[in-house]
């Protein structure tokens, strides 16, 4: 048996790949097919699906329906679901923007430190990962609460007279998401910036480029792969996030993630949840592919 693998390179490779491939096949691809199936059948009365299955495209039609009866009663709320999709995209873009805007200078700063400090600072960036995401989000909630740390502090300094409404709004959700996903932006950008040869900035200055032009013309294009990786790593999970909007938004801020979550929970509408999941996946996929297509030439050059 061992000799067979030793002699046959193709089977050797197969032997190495198959555990991982099997895992993905069994626990990612197969469930995805199940989700696809559920999205095309009618819902069961108490969750699940109607048996025997009745095929329908109603779950997709409902998404683009002006009347969102399944969600908010019989009245017509103009394009509620499409609106929530758009809203989620906007929040995800804002969060991604700030993660990159804050993360880039931070990555740059860390990359400029002495090696021992670099490692220490990177560990500080990664440490939050070791704490449970829920615990972190609840902790942040306590900081922003009406009687929370930040309000008490500002009141104590007499900078404000009454507590600020920092929780249960879009601001809180955005802050919570930036807080949660900043490390995902810092890690790839740091990897890119750390590899960047800073003597190129000297060369640019030597040739008459003021610092900001040197940055735009040399450093940014050369570290773009890291920025794109950060963009994908933050945008994709944030657009479908549901824990943070749920906790920080207090149920008032609806995002795709919370909406899908509800379909599998209180609304007991698995087929509708499945169709939304797939549409979200498709949108993200198209977005990411389009982005890579348009920037791949630039990225390849920068590598």
């Amino acid at each position, binding site marked *: 048996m061992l000799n067979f693998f030793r002699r046959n390179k193709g089977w050797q490779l197969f032997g190495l790949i198959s555990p991982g491939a099997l895992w993905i096949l069994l626990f990612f691809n197969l469930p995805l097919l199940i989700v696809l199936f559920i999205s095309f059948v009618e819902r069961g009365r108490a969750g699940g699906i109607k048996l025997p299955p009745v095929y329908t495209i109603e779950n997709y039609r409902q998404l683009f329906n002006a009347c969102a009866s399944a969600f908010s009663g019989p009245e017509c709320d103009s394009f509620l679901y499409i609106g929530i999709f758009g809203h989620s995209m906007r929040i995800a873009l804002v969060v991604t923007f700030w993660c990159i805007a804050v993360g880039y200078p931070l990555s740059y700063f860390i990359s400029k430190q002495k090696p021992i400090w670099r490692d220490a600072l990177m560990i500080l960036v990664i440490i939050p990962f070791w704490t449970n995401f829920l615990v972190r989000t609840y902790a942040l909630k306590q900081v922003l609460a009406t009687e929370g740390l930040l309000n008490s502090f500002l009141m104590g300094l007499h900078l404000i007279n009454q507590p600020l409404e920092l929780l249960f709004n879009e601001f809180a959700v955005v802050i919570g998401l930036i807080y949660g996903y900043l490390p995902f932006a810092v890690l790839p950008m740091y990897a890119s910036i750390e590899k960047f040869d800073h003597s190129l900035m*000297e060369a640019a*200055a030597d040739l008459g480029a003021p610092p900001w032009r040197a940055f735009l013309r040399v450093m940014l294009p050369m570290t773009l792969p890291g920025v794109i990786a950060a963009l994908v790593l933050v945008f994709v999970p944030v657009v479908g996030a549901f824990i943070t909007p749920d906790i920080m938004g207090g149920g008032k801020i609806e995002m795709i993630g919370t909406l899908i979550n509800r379909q599998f929970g209180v609304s007991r509408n698995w087929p509708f949840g499945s169709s939304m999941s797939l549409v979200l996946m498709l949108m993200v996929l198209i977005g990411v592919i389009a982005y890579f297509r348009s920037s791949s030439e630039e990225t390849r050059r*920068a590598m």
Partner: protein
Amino acid sequence: MAEFAVEMQDVLKQFITPEGGILSAVNHVTMQITDGEFFSLLGPSGCGKTTSLRMIAGFELPTDGKILIRGKEMSQVPAFQRPVNTVFQQYALFPHMTVEQNIGFGLEMRGVPRAERSKRVSEALEMVRLPGMEMRRPKQLSGGQQQRIALARALINKPEVLLLDEPLGALDLKLRKEMQLELKTLQREVGITFIYVTHDQEEALTMSDRIAVMSKGHALQIGAPEEIYERPANKFVADFIGETNFIDGVVKAQNGATIEIEWVGTGTICVESSRTFPNGQQVAVAVRPEKLRLNTEIKDGNNLKGRVEDVIYIGTDTHYGVRFAGGQKVRVREQNVMQGHHEMVHVGDEVSISFTYESPRVLTE
């Protein structure tokens, strides 16, 4: 008053070392570089030559002292506004740009329109003998080609001064020799002042109009190549530039320009020197191996006896190690003018070593 291309006035540059000490990388250096000159900063690594260059370029600011370019004080002028351009040691070409974009970068920053830029880039490429390379990327070029692109990228801006930081260091020997001549020719053609950093003494001697020999942050001697080679100011310069025999001796007497120096156990020699030394002063006599004659006694000169300890044949020359009666050892270099020349002297032979009164230098430090 003469205006210099670059002037360093008592420039000091100190760094904090990782251990918390203070390192004077450039220690009160003063030098004037004349317009149109090919000026080399020569010294071993860590001597302060690159730091000096970086201060002229504006990448570092002096801790104390002044740097003037064309008579203008530079401490308030950032690198991107200085009328100098640099050819970096590793070239520092922009990998994400084409050759054309690289060379045109300086013009682009100055707002030169695209059409003119492109015309001047092809001229610059002609100048460095790489026409038609516009659309290549730096990665697609050999080391020698990258070097030329870096040169073109700097020269296209017609700087007052071109700074070159060991630009040939990464090239192999043959290409380096070629580029030395080419750089020298190019410098004469464009008439721009070159400040050239190198640790290769031969390179400095070949190319420079003047050389500043640096060690441990000090400029030990500044002068033309023949001056540095023939009349080194101290032991370091004599040792660093070419090969030198140092023989310790004691001054016995001085009659005008002629000094009598005793080599203990060997004898007394006479050396001409413009300096005066007190009797009994310990000195080092520095004499180049090629100035020593083997078995060719000369009338107005020193003639000493010694024993051959080794003979090394190296093609063009033969090197002999000869020890005098007092234990002092010298190396002698003879050109192999005739075939079989080196076979006439053998290890253990008694030979005479002769040199003129003018050929040695008497040094105290």
